[in-house]
């Protein structure tokens, strides 16, 4: 969240005004209407982030019961990203797919897609998560304010923060163990010693 993005209200309004095409049921097997891989492909084109067909496979889904909610959320996020502002920050393909894939899965674990559309707090969560994903915060907010608000609103963010802390501790432990090994103690040749 190093950089300032658009005003929060702009994104909240965009989410509230999500058109029917992005609210229709995702196509999974013989059910549903919207092909999510096609939407993601078109979005990537629009954002200038080229994507290969095989990278879109997970957006097809196989089990309507299991996949519908996360794909509906992916459609909602795709609508948010289709705003012109996002094309201007030139996101990478990986960034886009990470948001529509894993982040949709995480959001789906906590609420139905309709809630992210209709509940004001959940709408705000989506808006803030999307901005934070690309390293931005809402216009007019400090980094600390934006982080505090996101953490208090979002279970997904709280889980991410916890996961990051666990990963950081695991990494620090690995480094300490590596430095304590006999091989590390033996060190290596320097022509002078301090």
């Amino acid at each position, binding site marked *: 969240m*190093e950089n300032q993005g658009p005003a929060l209200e702009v994104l909240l309004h965009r989410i509230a005004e999500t058109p029917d095409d992005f609210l229709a049921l995702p196509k999974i097997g013989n059910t549903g209407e919207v092909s999510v891989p096609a939407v993601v492909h078109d979005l990537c084109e629009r954002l200038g982030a080229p994507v290969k067909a095989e990278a879109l496979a997970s957006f097809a889904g196989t089990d309507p019961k299991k996949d519908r909610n996360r794909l509906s959320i992916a459609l909602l996020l795709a609508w948010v990203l289709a705003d012109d502002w996002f094309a201007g920050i030139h996101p990478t393909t990986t960034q886009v797919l990470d948001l529509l894939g894993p982040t949709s899965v995480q959001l789906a674990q906590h609420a139905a897609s309709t809630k992210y559309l209709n509940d004001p707090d959940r709408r705000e969560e989506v808006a803030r998560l999307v901005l934070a994903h690309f390293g931005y915060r809402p216009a007019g907010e400090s*980094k*600390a304010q934006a982080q505090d608000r996101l953490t208090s609103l979002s279970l997904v963010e709280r889980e991410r923060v916890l996961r990051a802390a666990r990963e*950081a501790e695991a*990494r*620090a*432990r*690995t*480094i*300490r163990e*590596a*430095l304590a090994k*006999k*091989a*590390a*103690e*033996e*060190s*290596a*040749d*320097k*022509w*002078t*010693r*301090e």
Partner: protein
Amino acid sequence: MSDPDISDRDRYPTLSAHGQSMLRFLQEHPHAPIYRNQSGNRLTLEEVNRARAFEKRVRSARVGWEPQTEPEWLRAFVEECFATVPFYRNHRLDPTRVSVQELPTTSRADLSHDIAAFVPDTVPTARLINFRTSGTTGHPLLLASHPFVAASYLAFHKRALDRFGIELRHGRGQVGVVLVGYQQKCFTYVSVTPTMDESGLAKINLHPADWRDPEDRAKYLDALNPEVYTGDPLSFSQLAQLPLKRRPRALLSTSMTLLPGLKTELEQRFACPVLDLYSMNEAGPIAVANDAAGGHVALQDRLFIEILDPSGARLPPGQRGEITLTGGFNFCLPLLRYRTGDYASLGFHRGEPVLLGLEGRPPVMFRTDAGIWINNIEVTHALKPYSISQYTLHQQADGSLQLRWVRHGAATDAVRRALETLFGAGQAITIHEVVRFEGKIVQYTSDLPFQP
């Protein structure tokens, strides 16, 4: 001390038959010391090639920046630190929005608290090595490093030697360097330097306890005939006493203040230049003393040197303060405004940064017999002409002075007179000669509270 988990293949991954015979020569020589440890260069072939390229770049690089400015690479380096190093990231600052001068400084205590937080996320941990320092500040350090970093030291040594017109020539079948120590306990081993066609490297302890016969020391070193000796003023004082017949092409001194008196004596004894390197485990070789430049000339092209006042504000060239480092070649320990605990002012000589009046440790104020307060640097200047390996000066609460020293060649009376000239004829001075100091020493101390 050998570990069955570590093989010679790990220690010397590129070792050839020539290298093997060099190791045998160093280890099995009839006059060899008792080698107590094992170590090696640990360099892969790819790293050997990379170390050669690094050396080429370092030796020809322009070191420095315009006075009162910052080097071009600095901003990108700072941003990289904030993106990848946990300790700096935890400052929670936007590095693109603050100047370098506004960034918090880093202390030895920070490194001592948790070195893992200084290793960038991008560094693989499998081949980390460590360097330990005992220090004199109550903060012993264990520093993360890598075999390539250790090998990179040589590039800066060569850059320093270039200033004195010395190009190292030794290669296959010859001994490139002997690292000389003089301690009760010392890490000793043999190795080869692959970037110099496996010339020999021996790290030895001149203390008689490490030799079957003390007479072996000169015989062994003459047999090795190294191109360079590296060590500190104390170990070089011992080396100078040995009846060596062969001469090195240079001596590289690190770790302690090398007084000009001893330097001159060593240069005469060995008939070669003696380079006084300012070097530390945290940053490697930083600068080399050069009379023409009037101080220690910076050696690293990717190391920015600031001089700070106690509040952390940057001082202009010419003003004395704490040497503070940003950058460095240890990619396992990128330094951001690291306060070294050493003091100097910054000058520029022909465009190169020079550390003027370099002194380890914060300044200590001494009171003269006339009640005038003087900086310890005055003492250093007064003792410069004398051949002293190592010394400490302490002022007691009653104002009396105690000089403890490893005398080497200097005359006690002459040193006493030099101190009396500085402190006044009535100054009480006791001088104690010691055989050696144990561990690192704090050179200047005082029980008198400074009253400006």
